[in-house]
């Protein structure tokens, strides 16, 4: 065994001392590395989706007449009609826009459920909740049973200018649809129909829910 190398007492850098320029270079280099790390880190975190994007609902789109899976229930849009005045036991209800009455079939999927959220959404993303001016028997408190489809009507009022391009959205929870499924179908409404409904003078009654025959 030939001993050629001197004993090692430490792993610190050996050799001639670093020059003044070298020391400044080391400090600048450290600063640059720190700034680069912060910059890269900020670039990552600033591109992360915000809370609203992360927790957005899963919108499931389907055609009119086809069941759309909203996780706890299926929604099928059956037909649409409209009016200028709807009426119930409390009297007539007019609107500054137009009434859109959507006939839907709802059926729970695996367990009893309720449908609390129903809105119309227009082409620009404005949402219009189902009206509270009449009792909407299909929404909120009515429990749906699995594979027992229930047909009923839901009434909305929207401005006349958006009524010919709206979709219906329905989901389980009235207040909180984060990360849940939302069923959506585009409504087949023409501007001629909107004009006709807006001009109608006969009040319309919204149908109560009944088990699908």
């Amino acid at each position, binding site marked *: 065994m030939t001993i050629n190398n001197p004993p090692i007492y430490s792993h610190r850098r050996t050799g001639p001392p670093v020059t003044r320029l070298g020391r400044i270079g080391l400090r600048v280099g450290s600063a640059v590395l720190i700034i680069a790390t912060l910059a890269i880190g900020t670039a990552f975190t600033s591109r992360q989706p*915000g*809370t*609203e994007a992360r927790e957005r609902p899963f919108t499931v789109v389907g055609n009119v007449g086809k069941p759309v899976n909203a996780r706890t229930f299926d929604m099928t849009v059956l037909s649409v009609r409209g009016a200028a005045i709807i009426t119930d036991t*409390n*009297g*007539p*209800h*007019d*609107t*500054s*826009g137009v009434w859109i009455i959507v006939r839907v079939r709802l059926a729970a999927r695996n367990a009893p459920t309720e449908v609390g959220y129903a*809105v119309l959404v227009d082409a*620009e*993303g*404005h*949402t*219009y*909740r189902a*009206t*509270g*001016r009449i009792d909407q028997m299909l929404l909120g408190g009515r429990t749906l049973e699995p594979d027992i489809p229930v047909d009923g009507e839901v009434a909305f*009022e*929207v*401005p006349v200018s*958006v009524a010919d391009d709206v979709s219906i959205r329905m989901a389980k929870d009235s207040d909180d649809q984060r990360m849940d499924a939302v069923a959506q179908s585009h409504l087949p409404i023409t501007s001629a129909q909107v004009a006709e409904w807006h001009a109608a003078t006969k009040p319309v009654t919204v149908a109560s829910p009944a088990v699908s025959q």
Partner: protein
Amino acid sequence: MPSSLNRLARKVPFRWFAGVVAVIGLGVSALFHGLAPVAAAQTPTVAPGKVIDAGPWKVTVVDTRLLSSSTGLKTTTDGDHWFAVVATVDDTTNDSREDMGDIVRLSHVAGLTAVAPQVILLASDATTLGYLNPGMPERVAFAWEQSSKVPLPTTAQIVIYGKTLRENSLDGTTDWLSPHVVADVTAPVLDKRT
């Protein structure tokens, strides 16, 4: 650093040095009006009929009135009546809103049993207002039950609140928060009970 400055720097206590810097900072601030008093923000007084920008809503106060019994509202105490602020409210956001109860408060009106309006009615059909839809302004009545034992005022001071669109510090979502006074309206009180 030159060696004479070095020696001086070593002799002066740090506190003196910090004090000198602070005085220089204040002086510079004073040069740019940093020490001038700030006027307190004044709440604008608006006449009825003018549109008030109240954050997520645009509010136009119409009048205040004592409601007639045709609304069908029942008071909890016999003999009381309903004192209402009638206003047009327009939802300027993208979605239906149900927080209109935060918009209106009354100032210096005696005999009320609550601070926030107890009922909000839609003027067209006297139904209880649930959601207001975007782009569909509605005339509504914000109502408080008022005791009949107090003399009726001839005018009432209405305080209109608005909210600010900002990030919610708890969960990072953007929402209309921080209710704050945006305007005062003085309106005559009309007796519509008969």
